[in-house]
């Protein structure tokens, strides 16, 4: 069964690859790979490769099993994955082909870089109002002078151009929303039932049980994996997806911002920024931390002294100030070399990339110190001594005996850092040293909305949307990180 399933997977993978390549070549667009996109794809390749490796190593697989078996972690994982899917959709960028101009055979591409997510959210993306409007509103937030039918000018709340435009007047809104809600929920439920039945069928086949038995087991939670929790979480996600999409095209479900852009769209776009900061930063710092930390602990002596000096020095500079200084300098550089970036998106992306780099440089020291301590401990262990007694060369001792035994520390600190970095993005954007102001991010949303705090009544929706989306992501990440730490920490095994 082992070889067969392996082949099946291979065939499936190569098939998908062919389809993807076909699509890439055939689509009438110019593909754009931003810096962070490239890194995200690298990260995906690394993750898939690692997963492949983990499959064949029981000592690596066992802790992951423990993680997924934990109900809370499994639920958190579903939430995280849905964020990741949105983030990935938002990481495939292209420029659309403009309609050919008369008399010219040259192909022109739009100067706007779009992502797959933009494409999927097209109605929501382009339905821009004039200015602020509250969630589900059908009128603008502030009064304007309106030309009446009879030519008189009245001050009133004008109707929105898109939000609820299909309604004759506000009295129909409640009914319309309820109807859409019910319709969306029933679609979601139907989809969920089909998928759940498929899952049960698959499980029953794998375990060689009857369909009914499998169903009973699943309901009672007698299975190794918490399928019940997974499916319920999936239902919640499906419900949210259907409801937000079906309502989203009719209304601005989170309202609109100052320039009339849909806040829901902004919030979804911010997901990618949050994820990029949370993951790429650690990815960037990882090589430094691992190589230097392990080297310091293993070789000791002057190597240790030099590395310790480097990280104490870097650590002694207050992180925010170092980031501020480098970001200011980078701003000057980007402003001074506008010719390097073709589009606004590329410029904003370059800044995001540098931010990750700088955050990485300021945050590798903690992990480095941890790894140094661990390597110091490991090098005295009997199995390392035994390797020396066999005359095993240094590099092999490092790669075979030291490195695999510090991996769990790397992983734990990776997941623990993630939520902190997502939260840090908001603060940095507030301080003015975060991502580019044109980029969609929760920090920028909060920062923009903060200035409107003084308004009466308050414009609260941007703020709330950003906080709620950030909170859900960070909470899920924290819960997941806890489970990972408990499963991988050797002290917690007992």
């Amino acid at each position, binding site marked *: 069964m082992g070889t067969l399933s392996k082949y099946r997977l291979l065939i499936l993978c190569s098939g998908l690859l062919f389809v993807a390549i076909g699509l890439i070549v055939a689509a009438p667009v110019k593909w754009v790979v931003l810096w962070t996109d490239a890194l995200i794809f690298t990260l995906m390749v690394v993750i898939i490769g690692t997963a492949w490796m983990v499959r064949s190593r029981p000592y690596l697989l066992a802790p992951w099993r423990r993680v997924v078996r934990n109900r809370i972690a499994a639920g958190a994982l579903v939430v995280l994955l849905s964020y990741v899917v949105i983030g990935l959709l938002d990481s495939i960028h292209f420029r659309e082909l403009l309609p050919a101009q008369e008399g010219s055979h040259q192909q022109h591409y739009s100067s706007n870089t779009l992502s797959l997510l933009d494409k999927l959210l097209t109605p929501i993306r382009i339905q821009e109002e004039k200015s602020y409007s509250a969630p589900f509103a059908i009128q603008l937030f502030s009064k304007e002078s309106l030309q009446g039918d009879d030519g008189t000018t009245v001050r009133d709340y004008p109707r929105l151009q898109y939000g609820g435009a299909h309604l004759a007047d506000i009295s129909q809104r409640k009914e319309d929303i309820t109807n859409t809600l019910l319709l969306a929920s029933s679609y979601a439920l139907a989809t969920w039932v089909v998928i759940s039945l498929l899952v049960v069928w698959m499980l029953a086949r794998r375990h060689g049980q009857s369909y009914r038995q499998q169903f009973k087991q699943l309901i009672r939670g007698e299975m190794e994996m918490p399928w019940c929790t997974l499916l319920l979480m999936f239902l919640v996600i499906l419900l949210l997806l259907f409801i937000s999409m079906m309502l989203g095209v009719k209304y601005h479900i989170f309202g609109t911002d100052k320039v009339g852009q849909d806040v829901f769209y902004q919030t979804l776009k911010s997901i990618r920024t949050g994820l990029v900061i949370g993951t790429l930063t650690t990815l960037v710092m990882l090589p430094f931390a691992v190589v230097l930390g392990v080297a310091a602990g293993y070789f000791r002596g002057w190597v240790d002294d030099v590395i310790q000096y480097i990280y104490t020095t870097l650590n002694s500079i207050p992180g925010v100030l170092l980031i501020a*200084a480098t970001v*200011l300098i980078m701003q000057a550089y980007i402003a001074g070399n506008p010719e390097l970036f073709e589009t606004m998106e590329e410029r904003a992306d370059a800044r995001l990339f540098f931010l990750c780099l700088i955050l990485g440089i300021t945050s590798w020291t903690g992990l480095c110190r941890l790894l140094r301590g661990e390597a110091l401990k490991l090098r005295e262990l009997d199995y390392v001594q035994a390797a020396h007694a066999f005359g095993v060369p240094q590099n092999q001792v490092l790669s075979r005996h030291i490195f695999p035994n510090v991996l769990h520390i790397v992983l734990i600190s990776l997941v623990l850092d993630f939520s902190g970095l997502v939260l840090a993005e908001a*603060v940095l954007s507030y301080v003015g040293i975060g991502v580019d102001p044109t980029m969609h991010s929760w920090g920028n949303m909060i920062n923009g909305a903060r200035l409107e705090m003084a308004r009466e009544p308050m414009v609260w929706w941007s703020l709330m949307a950003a*906080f709620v989306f950030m909170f859900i992501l960070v909470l899920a990440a924290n819960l997941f990180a806890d489970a990972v730490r408990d499963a991988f920490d050797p002290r917690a095994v007992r």
Partner: protein
Amino acid sequence: MIAYIIRRLLYAVPILIGVNILTFWLFFVVNTPDDMAHMQLGMKHVTEEAVDNWKAERGYDRPLFYNEQQDGMSTLTDTIFFDNSLRLFVFDFGQSDDGRDIGYDISERMWPSLALAIPTLIIGLLVNLTFAMLMAFFRGSYVDLSGVILCVVLMSISGLFYIIGGQWLVSKVLHLVPISGYQPGVDAWKFLILPVVIGVIGGIGSGSRWYRTIFLEEISRDYVRTARAKGLGERLVLFRHVLRNALVPILTGVVVVIPLLFMGSLVMESFFGIPGLGSYTIDAINKQDFAIVRSMVFLGSVLYIIGLILTDISYTLVDPRIRLN
């Protein structure tokens, strides 16, 4: 002991030199004075003359390391490196880009920062310890479980939410205290109470969860079993044995941040309009005033290193194992 402190102080010297060279490299080599002038005067439509004037006013027109036009010692002292970097070692911060004395500003603005930071630290520590003790005392029960869940939830909320929510609720809806501002002297409490409370609440989640882990780790040790075998009650075991051991890592973790309190909190101070060093820094960043940022970087490093030394000393004071060896 004195020899030990001297040794630690000497270790700090190369680190400060490293910081100094790094900041000099960042601020004058990577980012040249020309860039600074352009940024201050606006990117476009700047004449060469204006740039030169701007540089001359601040002494940035001199060479970086070696001034050939001077004689004797001045070849080395009349340079940007000497005036703007080496002078930091004697806490001579020079002038900001808009001509104010940085040293004076720092000495003025440090007090509001401390007035905000010290109460936040002390109250936060006490609140976190109490929470953690409660959770450790009721470990394994629903009190503990709900405490941990509450901590994770609190941890997952952005600090900005606490600030904005607090300002909105307390100042805007309830009108209890002014929304922002500062007044020196006794009346300062009116302006400080809200940021202090918000600072404490913002730190409860991660703080008490961490302390709880330390407590639980100590509770599982053998000496606790010995104490129980003596017939001591759970309260005595917790307060007399566990707390004292747990305080070793907790206190030393706190000591490291004490000197950095001088630096103030960037976000808190600017939100609440408190004229401390935090808002000073943030203003400098927004104005792109590199002289101030550079000074604050150096000051921060000095304070961090002092914190490290204090930590080592406090270890020797709290832990007899280290003190007596």
